[in-house]
Structures are given as structure tokens and as C-alpha cells.
């Protein structure tokens, strides 16, 4: 199982704050996993999860799309940060 978290505008647009899923295949890339999420949800998910400035983190570290996932990972999707 992996845990998937959504924050801020992304959370509101998807009306989802977290999901728990089994990885469709071990070692799948973040890009392929994002496609899997899109394919298993409605059209809004494609629009939101492919937006140009979306940030993705794995285990609380910002990563690129070619990052490989493992069971137990925490995956997060969020817009550019605006704290401080």
C-alpha cells in the first residue's frame, strides 16, 4: 500500500485529501503512477494532476516524475508553496 496526499487547491479541486492504494506494479515510476490515478478517476483528475505547476513529493521530499515508487511510500501532490 502507498498513501497519497493532496493539499491546498489540489485537495479542493479533487475533493480528496488522502487515498490508500496498492501500487499497480512494484518500482512503477511516479509518472506512470500518476497516469494510473488519472485513469481510475473522473476527467477532473486528468486536468488537475497534469497541470503545469503541480509539485510532487515522495516521502516528504520533492521529486521528479521518473522517481520509482515502493510499497509504503507517502506520495503528495500540491501547488507551488506560499508560506512565510
Amino acid at each position, binding site marked *: 500500500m502507498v498513501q497519497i*496526499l493532496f*493539499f*491546498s*487547491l489540489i485537495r479542493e479541486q479533487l475533493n480528496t485529501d488522502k487515498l490508500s492504494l496498492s501500487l499497480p506494479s512494484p518500482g512503477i515510476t511516479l509518472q506512470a503512477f500518476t497516469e494510473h490515478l488519472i485513469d481510475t478517476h473522473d476527467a477532473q483528475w486528468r486536468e488537475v494532476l497534469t497541470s503545469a*505547476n503541480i509539485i510532487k*513529493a515522495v516521502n*516528504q*521530499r*520533492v521529486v521528479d516524475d521518473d522517481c520509482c515508487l515502493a510499497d509504503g511510500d507517502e506520495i*503528495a501532490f*500540491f*501547488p*507551488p*508553496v*506560499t*508560506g*512565510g
Partner: protein
Amino acid sequence: MNLDNVSVSVQLQDFDVSAEIQRLRNQSAQVGAVASFVGVVRDINDDQTISILELEHYPGMTEKSIAEIIVMAADRWQLIGVRVIHRVGKLLPTDQIVLVAVTSMHRGEAFAACEFIMDYLKTRAPFWKKEQTATGARWVDARSTDQTAADRWKQSD
């Protein structure tokens, strides 16, 4: 820098700058300089009056990312202590949002590290601001000027 002298909090409640500076001064009698920054909620942003500012964050990753930024600062400058407090939840205009306080022997290091930590926190720590205005709620857009400020610190090596 002794890691015992580093402290990061993400909290709902307000903070007392004097008490935080006092604690930093008590860490070492070699502290000669305390540079600090307090971010404050403004009543007008992008031409709209703000009634409430709500801060969301990514628990765990916020603390981790700020700790990493402090380690980067301690690699570049000779620091004695660092204290960062970031508030979350609902805030009002004139409320304090964030404190970054840095101590060192001499002022140049404290000033540079304090500004560096703020610039990186602004672009790397997962916080998001939502403003309540007369025409409804809106998520604050990231500013390119914040990215420019952080990019200034990139070392050409």
C-alpha cells in the same frame, strides 16, 4: 552549529519574539548578533481587503524541509543558533505569521543566514495561504519574486 541550538515549530498559537531571542542569547555567551525576521498578515493584498488568512501545511514535511534549509545555512555561515516558528490555521491582519531568528558571533553571518532561511522557506516549505476577501476565498498565488530571491543564493561552483 550545535544541533541542540536549532528549534523548529509549526503551531496554531502566537509567539513572543523577546522570549525567543532571550532563549537564543542564553545558548552561548559568544552570541554577539541576533538577526530576526517576523512576517505579518497585511490587510490588503493584490488590491483586495483581507478579512482572514488561513494557512494550510503538510505536517511532517514542513518541519523536515525547514530543518534542511537550516542545515544548508549552517554549512554556509558560522552560526550559533536558529529558531523558526511558523503559524498555521486562521490568522487576522496584523497577526504574526512566521519568525526566523539566527544568532552568530558577528552580524554579517546572522543577517545573511536569516534572509537565506526566509527566502528558502518561502519557496520550499509546504505551506499554502488562503485569503478570505469581500468577494470570496482565494488561494494566494506563488510570486516569481520569491523564486528570484531564493535563486540569488545559488552558488556558482
